[in-house]
């Protein structure tokens, strides 16, 4: 028994489910103080090794201590799994927001100063024109002034192309009073700079960081400093995988919840119509296994090996999604052994499939939600967002709202329409940006969930189509 166990550990150390490993680990601690000997568990020799006898494997399940540790372990796994990822992503974005605020606001102030300088120069020129003409002939004056204003206009176009946002936060009355006190030179005093937050306020930076790691990339504000660009590159490199992890994680979690809700709803309301299940979830390459589910339930294998074999098959996290919003590959990003509930379910499913060709009762892990429902969820989220944004933004109509939602959620992100981007927005601009960010974060997870739910049927349909067209031999990939 000990031999099998040690062999098993060496073989399956890394690919065992977390639950199994922690099970073994937990057996350690209650017995540490008993000074166990023996066991050659690789990598787990901490303070004692472990009792090779079979009796020690069964933990003292009734002890309160065990229950607490079990709960703690599950909590940690859950936290690490879901809430942890969310928190990590949000924390990463917040950190990035602060960094970009610090990096870009100096440059922003400089840009404002530049614009103001250009304006003052224009004013000076206009004054010179006006002053020189002793008698004011409208035509002449208009001509010269018009040329001057044209030049000013072109410079403004240039500035806006470079990222100037048109805002001028310098207090107007301050300017007026200042020009009365001084001789109207109008140079910005140091006191003015302190009142300007500029385009890189906290919520704008937050949205910017979010658009970088989700690859939306609006571009309505973009870094202009050297440091800003380098930080953007590094930030994107690290943040994008993190966000993909979040999306896949949340997508799977939400899909599971949705399936559970759907199955229960179907059970309650339409129990006459059975919920459609698929026998197993296999990858495109394992289509042969699909037709012979009994094959895979080889009872002669040990339980761990069976689970090992089942892991790719039964895994809730599907194979290569054709893209999704971020071109991720779910099965690779979400390890099969990830967390308590999934392992329980996978073992349960394995037993069910071993018992019969198809599960006797609806198992919510294998229920197939029809495509129409997933599409409805996606579309309604977009429409809901469109309505909300149309209410919030004064000059958006419903088309603009839905266009914005669609373009953002598909991670295209042109940046022509961004909430809170108007110059004369009221103080609700901060709230608007934060709301937009939340909408995007949740929206991505929802889209991932929908793709998760849809992909089974879509792939089956595409395969059928391919077979009917003769491109794919039946039984082939």
């Amino acid at each position, binding site marked *: 028994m000990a031999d099998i166990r040690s062999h098993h550990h060496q073989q399956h150390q890394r690919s065992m489910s977390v639950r199994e490993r922690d099970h073994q680990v937990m057996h*350690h601690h209650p017995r540490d103080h008993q000074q166990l000997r023996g066991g050659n568990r690789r990598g787990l020799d901490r303070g004692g090794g472990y009792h090779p006898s079979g009796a020690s494997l069964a933990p003292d399940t009734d002890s309160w201590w065990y229950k607490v540790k079990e709960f703690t372990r599950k909590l940690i796994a859950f936290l690490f799994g879901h809430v942890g990822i969310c928190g990590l992503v949000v924390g990463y974005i917040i950190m990035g927001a602060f960094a970009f605020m610090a990096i870009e606001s100096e440059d922003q102030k400089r840009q404002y100063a530049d614009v103001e300088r250009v304006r003052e120069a224009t*004013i000076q020129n206009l004054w010179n024109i006006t002053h020189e003409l002793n008698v004011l002939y409208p035509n002449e004056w208009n001509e010269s002034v018009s040329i001057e*204003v044209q030049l000013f206009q072109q410079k403004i176009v240039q500035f*806006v*192309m470079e990222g100037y946002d048109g805002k001028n936060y310098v207090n107007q009355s301050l300017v007026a009073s200042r020009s009365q006190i001084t001789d*109207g030179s109008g140079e910005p005093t140091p006191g003015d700079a302190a009142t300007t937050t500029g385009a890189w306020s906290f919520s704008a930076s937050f949205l910017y960081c979010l658009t970088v790691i989700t690859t939306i990339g609006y571009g309505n504000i973009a870094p202009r400093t050297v440091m800003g660009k380098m930080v953007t*590159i590094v930030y994107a490199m690290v943040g994008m995988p993190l966000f993909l992890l979040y999306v896949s994680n949340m997508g799977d979690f939400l899909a599971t919840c949705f399936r559970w809700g759907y199955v229960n709803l179907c059970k309650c309301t339409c129990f006459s119509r059975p919920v459609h299940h698929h026998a197993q979830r296999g990858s495109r390459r394992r*289509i042969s296994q699909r037709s012979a589910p009994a094959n895979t339930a080889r009872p002669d294998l040990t339980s761990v090996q069976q689970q090992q074999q089942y892991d790719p098959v039964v895994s809730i996290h599907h194979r290569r999604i054709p893209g999704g919003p971020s071109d991720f590959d779910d099965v690779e990003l979400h390890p099969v052994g990830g967390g308590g509930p999934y392992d329980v379910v996978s073992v349960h499913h394995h037993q069910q499939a071993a018992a019969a060709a198809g599960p006797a009762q609806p198992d919510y892990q294998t229920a197939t939600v029809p495509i129409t429902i997933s599409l409805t969820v996606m579309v309604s989220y977009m429409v809901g967002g469109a309505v909300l944004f149309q209410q919030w933004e004064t000059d958006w109509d419903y088309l603009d709202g839905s266009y914005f939602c669609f373009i953002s959620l*598909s991670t295209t992100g042109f940046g022509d329409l961004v909430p809170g981007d108007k110059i004369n927005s009221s103080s609700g601009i901060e709230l608007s940006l934060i709301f937009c960010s939340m909408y995007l974060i949740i929206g991505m997870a929802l889209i991932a969930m929908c793709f998760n739910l849809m992909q089974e049927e879509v792939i089956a349909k595409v395969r059928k189509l391919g077979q009917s067209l003769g491109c794919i031999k039946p039984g082939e*990939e």
Partner: protein
Amino acid sequence: MALDRKRSVRDRGSVRSRGSSSASSSDPREKLKDCCRQFVAFMFTQVGVGALVVSYAIMGAFAFMAIEGESENSENNDHVAHLRSSCLSRLWNVTDHLNVLEERKWKLDVRQVLLDHQQAMALAIKGGYDGRTNQERWTFPSALMFSLSVFTMIGFGHLVPRTQWGKIATMLYAVFGIPVYVLYFMNMGQVLASCFKWFYCKLVRCVNSAGAVDELSDDMDEESYSGLVIVPSTACLWVWLTYLAVGTIMFAEWENWEYLDACYFCVTSLCKIGMGDFVPGANLQASSNQTKLIINFVYLLVGMGIIAMCYNLMKEEILVRLQELKADLIERLQDVSGRMRR
């Protein structure tokens, strides 16, 4: 660990291999036919998908040129002209009003006028005014670039539809275009990954005549190549970095950008972020850089393929590492909590 991975790989192994191996053992002619059929399907798939993507982009370019380029030059230019004339008339009023021209007061009023004009102008520019007409803006290469940025989900944003129909067309174009692109992405990734692995095999065999056979293997087309060779992630990273460097140098030289700017552009475009502050060939002054837009198009498409390739080659390794990391972390957490309890 190696053993069970092999078993899982075998279990998940490509059915094609099973099929072909069983067929080949029985009938060589059957094997030949199978091979031919596979080759035809392969070519049809890869070439077909590539052609589909390009033709979809071209079709979209024409459609958007028709929708957006032909639309009236519209309010923006008129609006800006109107702004300018109102600014002028205000200035005149200010000047005319003061019988005696006192500099300070005059400047104060003029400053206010200019400030308003500036903000209105900035608003108009954000609304799409840049001194060009719609025909000038929506040339064929620009429209091509726009179509590309829609269905690859890059979304530069330097050129956007302003009409209602344009926006609706964009959404429809994206809905149909994104699956096509995803198909291309997956296909391109597989093809390039296979090519790269083959190339790497040859290289390794040249260098190391015994041939490097590794325990771990990628579950991809292993039946075609003797020996299981895993392409290390560093090789993929080198390929990507090289491609990035090529793009950086190319764009920096052509567009007279700084090297950092060109690198920033390459990274943000290839990662599909697409800020749009730097787009080759899209600046106002250079209207003759149309061919550069086409080169940009090709660069981005091929770049996406290379990313897909790196992704394919690296994902399994990353998965295993992530699993290990996570298990390790949980183990350490348990360990620490256990130690604290003692």
